């Protein structure tokens, strides 16, 4: 934690300095600046609308009934006369025996547990790559870098075939095990260890008589905490949004994460035949399913930014 606080105060200092400089220039360029501001603000507003409109639509759609979605009195972007959010949530609790909440629970399991396990592996691997010399280190790290280039969707069918061979298809393991593979996390951890964890500190710990494990837990791990949090967040969000893999390897709907479950409801609604139409549950279910991620984003914002910039500057 200490590093993070230090970084924060340092950058705050830089900002004050910049502001002072700006103040000096201000008088000269005020006019041009004003026009520029208008332009910037317009662009930002347009961009904001562009990004927020779908979210707004989802919020509005979540409050509609099935027919309200098609025939809402005030169009797609405003609430219909009948406000049905509460009814929809009640229906989510009863439809197919409330399987929706099971899906949410599954998503939490896949995201939190899978994310945790993959973080542990990333931390160990990244630390090892950064601080130890061993045979084939370069080759292995290149392998990790290479793995970064392969889109994970391309691996889904091979994973499915492997899982079939070992009889793990249609179990939670089929989703959890592949989540452990997180080359981005390994890469981030290695870079972070190299930059923020001086070899001298580890040397000092060793000289003082600490074993490798003790050095890792007592000296290295505390310094790595910000990066660990970032990797954990990234992998959790990745696992939460994971769709294609569970779609392929799972058949029992009790094991579905929320992404696959909602898709099943959507295609069921679209099927045209006499299927039950649950568009209202698809919209309100989607709305509820983004809430945990929105919360995670709001409360843990600074770690996300940390994740984006980690390793981008070499001191």
């Amino acid at each position, binding site marked *: 934690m200490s590093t993070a606080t230090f970084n924060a105060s340092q950058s705050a200092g830089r900002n004050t300095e910049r502001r002072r400089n700006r103040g000096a220039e201000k008088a000269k360029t005020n006019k041009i600046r004003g026009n520029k501001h208008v332009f910037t603000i317009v662009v930002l507003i347009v961009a904001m609308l562009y990004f927020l409109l779908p979210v707004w639509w989802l919020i509005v759609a979540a409050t509609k009934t099935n027919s309200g979605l098609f025939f809402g009195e005030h169009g797609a972007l405003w609430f219909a006369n009948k406000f049905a959010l509460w009814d929809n949530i009640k229906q989510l609790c009863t439809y197919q025996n409330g399987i929706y909440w099971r899906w949410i629970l599954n998503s939490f399991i896949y995201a939190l547990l899978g994310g945790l396990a993959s973080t542990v592996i990333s931390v160990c691997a990244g630390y090892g790559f950064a601080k130890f010399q061993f045979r084939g280190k370069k080759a292995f790290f290149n392998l990790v870098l290479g793995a970064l280039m392969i889109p994970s969707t391309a691996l889904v069918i091979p994973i*499915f075939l492997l899982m079939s*061979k070992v*009889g793990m*298809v249609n179990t939670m393991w089929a989703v959890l095990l592949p989540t452990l593979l997180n080359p981005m996390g390994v890469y981030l951890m290695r870079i972070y260890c190299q930059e923020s964890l001086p070899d001298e500190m580890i040397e000092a710990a060793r000289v003082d008589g600490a074993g490798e494990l003790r050095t890792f837990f007592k000296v290295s791990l505390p310094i790595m905490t910000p990066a660990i949090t970032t990797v954990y967040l990234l992998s959790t969000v990745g696992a939460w949004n994971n769709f294609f893999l569970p779609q392929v390897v799972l*058949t029992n709907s009790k094991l579905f994460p929320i992404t696959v479950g909602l898709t*099943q409801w959507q295609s069921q609604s679209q099927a045209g035949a*006499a299927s039950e139409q649950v568009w209202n549950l698809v919209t309100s279910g989607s709305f509820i399913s983004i809430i945990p991620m929105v919360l995670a984003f709001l409360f843990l914002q600074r770690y996300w930014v940390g994740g984006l910039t980690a390793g981008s500057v070499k001191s």
Partner: protein
Amino acid sequence: MNKATKLLAAVAAGVMAVSIAACGGSSSSSGSSASVNTDKTANDNASCTNTIKKTGVEKVTVWAWYPGIQDVVDDFNENHDDLQVCWNNGGQGGGEYTKFQNAIKAGTGAPDVIQLEYEAMPQFMTGNEQHLVDLSQFGFNDYKDDYTAGSWKSVQLGTDDKVYGVPVDLGPFVMYVREDIFKQYGVDVPTTWDEFAEAGKELKAAGYDGYLTDFPLNSTAMLLAFFAQTGDDVYTYSASDPTKVKVNYNSDGAQKVLKYWKELVDEGLVDTTDANTTDWTTNILGGKYATWVQASWQTGYLAADSDDGDADSGFRIYKAPVWDSSTPDVNQGGSAWAVTDQAKDTEAAYTVARELFSSDSAQKIGVTTGGLFPAWTSMLDSDYFKTEKIAFLGDQEANEITIPVAEGYKGYSFLPFQTYAYDEQDKTLKSIFQDNTDVSTALSALDDTLNNYAKQQGYTVE
């Protein structure tokens, strides 16, 4: 041209030739039929979406997406002491087929019994890919009279005495008519296609500002039903000779159908909005279409999207318009239970496939909860079904119209690469109706495309 360049050119040409030849592939017919297994305990630990009612009993795994299927499965499990069904939803149509294909590739993971639409069955019974079990070996032919002629023919897949599925539901092709609109503008409900076109003009002349109907450019199975009405077979395929196909989009029937609709669309009488989209739903429920020619299962779909599915919508079901007195009854959609070659205990799987919907209680769940149109003759003959009043259709006893259509339907075949054919058909429709390509030109191009594709896939083309 110097020597080196020549050599290079020759090598390049050689590589090209080899790759093209490789594209051709060759799937020789081995004629091997799907294997029969007898492992009664392999499914003991299978993971099921439903709760198994009786423990310690042999389980059969099933994939299906029928609405109300969980109730049907529970009904089966309560009434059986020797077998229990373990059900999962493998996905809706195409999603499930992809999963099934993946399981075939993996050699494991497929269910014992699987719901397949009639049109999807050939792709699992073609060339060396024989993944559905012939049920006649268990005596299923004795039950032939329990199912309508058309549905039975659909699961025979072109063979004489083999059966690859247990028919479940059908989609009798009928016409939904907004009777109130026709009354309001004083126009008679048409019975032939000539009258149909005439009615469109009369409605327009009388001031109706909607369309006579919609001819969706994303229609796939619907178009095949229109073609079948002309008596022409667009596709010919048989599981008894699974390396041979015949594609005939050049037929007079196909040309007649598309020219007819093209004219109506050009005159502005018919809309071309893609079906089952939100726009389309808004249009059809909002009175924009005076008719809608479609399978009878559309009722449930429309009712679910209405403000009040139990209120009279103005729609009534009529017989689909005909070309002349020889126009056959046709069908759009429907599905069957098939037993896969990965079934652990093949005969038990057959029992489940045959018995799942073969009870009055299961049939009633299918009809009421699922909105299925049954292929099971005892249901079609029952007073319960004949006199079923449908609130959405103003309490019409619509099955009086649909039952004869289902019984009159004789069945037709689909291609082992039906999805590809649908995609190409889709493009052809867009080129005819959006780019104004001549109907005959477009159809013969489609015919060529599909024939070439069939050859590339190693089929003999007639």
